[in-house]
């Protein structure tokens, strides 16, 4: 984006203004555009879709009244929450209580700076890209602890503490899985990592070697835990903690937390896509730069959104784990496994400095075989659990 702004300055669009002021204006404009035209609708529609998908999995209807199939439900919810009374408990620590949602929100929104939607479509291709991403998301923990403590409520405090313990623990396997890919790509820049992969599935880092294949699932599991998603949603476990650290929040502040949670789902998908699934790489089908840009954006968006759907699916399928199970899963299984994948990849790189194409192809075929088996199994289950399949939503 900086190149574009520089070009505008060169062509004399802003005479007499210092360069820094123009950059500041450009940054504010970019933040505004990204927030209001991409992140807000994305988080909103994800919230609606999650409720619909979840309802369908539980044989319910879900929100279907506002707009076609209820797609505008998020706008109605937003307006409702804006109009609600903003309650600050009298025993709460007022300043911290007010500040907490913003810190969570900043930690979430700052990730969009380095998410590469296309070869040209990125706010800033930082040279420490993925590392920056890991760093800014750690702000969320502080916000959650702040919310938990400032509410002056034991459910909130317990939720905040659980959340912080969980995020701090799961950051380790997630970070190690990311490190595996940094090894292979030899760069931390998001665009650099994508450019090191190809458009074909067997050129993706997912199939680079058996260890990166494992690292992908480690990353996805750890990221779900970091995002406080079921089956790892013990910080807001409704059956034990009312609503965890958001118990005392109401109106728009409450919405900020969930806005960040739903938006964060997409960020998880985007990181997984960038690191393991070839990002925006498209096959060379056209020379038109605009068309290529649109195609890249669509490919990236669909890949990332598929993982959002998988997260909803997991949430609709699995029960919540207990606190001790959560911690032992992280420290006894995920952390050692991620160390194995890290060392294995390092050894693989020593053995095959240029990568092993045959192995990649074999891994790809194995992935396809796993998918086929999975679909066979699901098909079997569906045929045996219901007399008839309704392909169309019947309400």
């Amino acid at each position, binding site marked *: 984006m900086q190149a574009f702004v520089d070009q505008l300055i060169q062509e004399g669009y802003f005479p007499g203004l*210092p360069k820094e002021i123009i950059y500041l204006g450009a940054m504010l404009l970019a933040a505004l555009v990204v927030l209001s035209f991409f992140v807000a609708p994305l988080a909103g529609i994800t919230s609606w879709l999650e409720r619909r998908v979840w309802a369908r999995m539980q044989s319910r209807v879900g929100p279907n009244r506002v707009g076609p199939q209820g797609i505008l439900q998020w706008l109605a919810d937003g307006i409702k929450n804006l109009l609600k009374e903003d309650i600050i408990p009298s025993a709460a620590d007022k300043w911290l209580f007010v500040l907490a949602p913003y810190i969570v929100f900043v930690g979430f929104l700052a990730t969009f700076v380095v998410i590469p939607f296309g070869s040209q479509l990125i706010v800033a291709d*930082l*040279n420490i890209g993925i*590392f920056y991403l890991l*760093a800014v998301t750690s702000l969320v923990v502080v916000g959650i*602890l702040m919310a938990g403590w400032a509410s002056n409520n034991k459910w909130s405090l317990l939720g905040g503490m659980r959340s912080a*313990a969980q995020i701090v623990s799961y950051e380790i396997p997630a970070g190690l899985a990311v490190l595996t890919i940094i090894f292979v790509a030899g760069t931390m820049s998001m665009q650099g990592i994508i450019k090191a992969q190809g458009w074909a599935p067997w050129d993706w880092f997912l199939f680079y070697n058996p260890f990166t294949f494992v690292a992908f699932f480690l990353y996805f599991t750890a990221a779900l835990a970091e995002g406080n998603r079921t089956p790892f949603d013990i910080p807001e476990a409704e059956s034990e903690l009312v609503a965890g650290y958001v118990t005392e929040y109401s109106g728009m502040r409450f919405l900020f937390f969930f806005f960040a949670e739903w938006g964060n789902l997409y960020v998880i998908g985007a990181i997984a896509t960038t690191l393991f699934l070839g990002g925006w790489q498209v096959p060379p089908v056209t020379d038109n730069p605009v068309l290529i840009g649109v195609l890249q954006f669509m490919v990236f968006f669909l890949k990332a959104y598929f993982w959002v759907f998988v997260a909803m699916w997991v949430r609709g399928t699995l029960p919540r784990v207990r606190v001790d199970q959560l911690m032992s899963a992280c420290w006894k299984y995920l952390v050692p496994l991620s160390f194995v994948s890290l060392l294995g990849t390092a050894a693989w790189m020593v053995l095959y400095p240029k990568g092993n194409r045959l192995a990649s192809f074999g891994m790809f075929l194995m992935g396809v075989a796993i998918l086929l088996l999975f679909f066979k199994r699901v098909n079997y289950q569906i045929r045996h659990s219901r007399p008839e399949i309704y392909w169309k939503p019947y309400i």
Partner: protein
Amino acid sequence: MELATVIFYLIAAVTVGSAAMVAFSRNIIHSAFSLLGTFAGVAAIYVFLGADFVAAVQVLIYVGGILVLILFAVMLTHRITDVRITNRAVGRIPALAVIGVFLFLLVQTIRETPWQKAKEILYSPTTAKIGDLFLGNYLLPFELASLVLLAALIGAVVISRKELKE
């Protein structure tokens, strides 16, 4: 005044301001949360100096790790706010003396250091260079630091382990 100077003083004001909050706040939780501003301000100074990797590490380690640990310690400590200090004056006079000595040392160091002004600001990637130095010239300090951390880790395990009683 140059724009860069203005930005520097803004960052410095945030850093020093929240550090003052840490020191003077009567509520220990507020002190702990004010550290967020201090750490973020220091990270901003690193960014300002073009040290991108160090800035990200600063946020990741200090905000994501150390601050959370401090908050945990404060929140888990039973009745931490109820500590009664009976004789405040005893603490103040030695503290003033120590602060005075430190201030003198700091000012002296700042005055005696031959500061050089960079002629040209080069913003180049630093990560690879840091890695080379860690595994080259500074291998021994690097490994020693990891050894110290490992010792601390084992110490923590030993302290927190439940002793089995017959």
